[in-house]
């Protein structure tokens, strides 16, 4: 499903994915079928991806997450927002996150 992602949207990890940290490697293990492209694949997030994933708690908007990250990373709010929109799209298309509030 193509999705128009908005910075005011809120997302949460899907219940059909288990996030695990195995010795510093952050991986997402699909539970149900249809996550990602191939069924037997496990996914890994890099450091930035992991930070964003962990902030997607079903309460914060993407904009709020970007704001929090702007304190930590030496990048402009705009750059961070673009990154967040990118990863959100990628994770959503792989059904790894769900919208916490339905779009109006």
């Amino acid at each position, binding site marked *: 499903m193509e999705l128009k992602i908005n910075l005011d949207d809120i997302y949460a990890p899907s219940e059909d994915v288990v996030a695990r940290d195995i010795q510093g490697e952050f991986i997402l293990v*699909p539970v149900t079928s249809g996550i990602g492209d191939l069924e037997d694949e*496990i996914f890994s*997030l*890099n450091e*930035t991806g992991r930070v964003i994933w962990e902030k997607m708690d079903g309460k914060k908007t993407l904009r709020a997450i970007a704001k929090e990250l702007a304190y930590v990373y030496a*990048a402009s709010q705009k*750059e961070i927002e673009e990154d967040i929109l990118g990863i959100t799209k*990628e994770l959503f298309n792989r059904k790894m996150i769900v919208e916490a509030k339905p779009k109006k």
Partner: protein
Amino acid sequence: MGKQFYVQTKNIRESRFIHKKLLISRLDIELAERCNNNCIHCYINLPADDLLAKEKELSTAEIKNILKEAVSLGCLVVRFTGGEPLLRKDFEEVYIFARRCGLKVMLFTNATLITPHLAELFCHIPPLEKIEVTLYGMKKDSYEAATRVSGSFEAAQRGINLLLEKKIPFVVKGALLPSNKEEIDEFEAWAKIIPWMGKPPAYAMFFDLRCRRDVRKNELIKKVRLSADEGLKILTRNKSRYIKEMKIFCAKFIRPPKDKIFSCGAGCGGGCVDAYGKFQLCMMLRHPDTVYNLRCGSLKDALENFFPKIRKIKATNREYLSRCANCFLKGLCEQCPAKSWEEHGTLDTPVEYFCEIAHTQARFLGLIEKDEKAWEVNNWKKRISDFVKRDVIN
């Protein structure tokens, strides 16, 4: 900010984490020592209705606790085996629990108990590892001569067809028995229709004796074991491939072990929980001195403290010290503490059956001369390097 790619799709295998010194990357669990088949060659099948065995088995909660601990230690894969793991009434619950903990599941099964419901479950919640099905014959007669259960052939066919229909990734393996050894070509041709095979099926042929040392059943197993020569004939059906593989193998893995009895990876990065909660260094080794009771301990304690102690055990058997300790075929030969336990009830007694198999292969490969004993060979390094360099003539 960061790099552009956040989600990398990778088929991450547990081996990826081994170099990171994970205490456990893969765990084997024998869900039951019981089986609904009664295979003549099997090292572990108690009757499906063995009440005593059933009563002693780990409870659902105990299995879940073991899985939880394994996950907390970084384990990525659990292999459910048996006996026949699908005999357990709580299989579905345990399976879903494991997957919801973020484990990949490997399932070893005879496929006879795969129902439409279970196939649907594997579709909806895929195991993430190919299911491994052992097939004992291509025809009712040959199959049931091995399983000794009427109707088991049709049941296995039904199970396999369900996996095919539902496109659930699986591979098949064989066990070479007097009743089916003429069917290899047919088996391999059929196996090609399974989209997930990738390579020809593997076979069990040099069967292990009973893991609980059952003298009566051992006699049956000995009767259906292939001889060393028969085994060699099968191994060398594709001679150049066999020699090519053996060159790589021998260059890497064969050498005299001295008084060390563990040359393998048993107990490193994993182990096997038996149906009653005893944690073993590997699936085969059940010598009572080498198993750890998880009912009054933890995986962590076993992996950190108990297994390393066991792995340090040195050989004391004089025969082993004069033969195997100096034998450069160790590695090619399956001699190990588990085989010694099954055959002799000790950890370090040479097993003649495996000794003969290793010598037969070594003679074929030109590593030893006729009548030569591998443990008497001093220039073994040269022999291996000459073998590795030699051209293969078909």
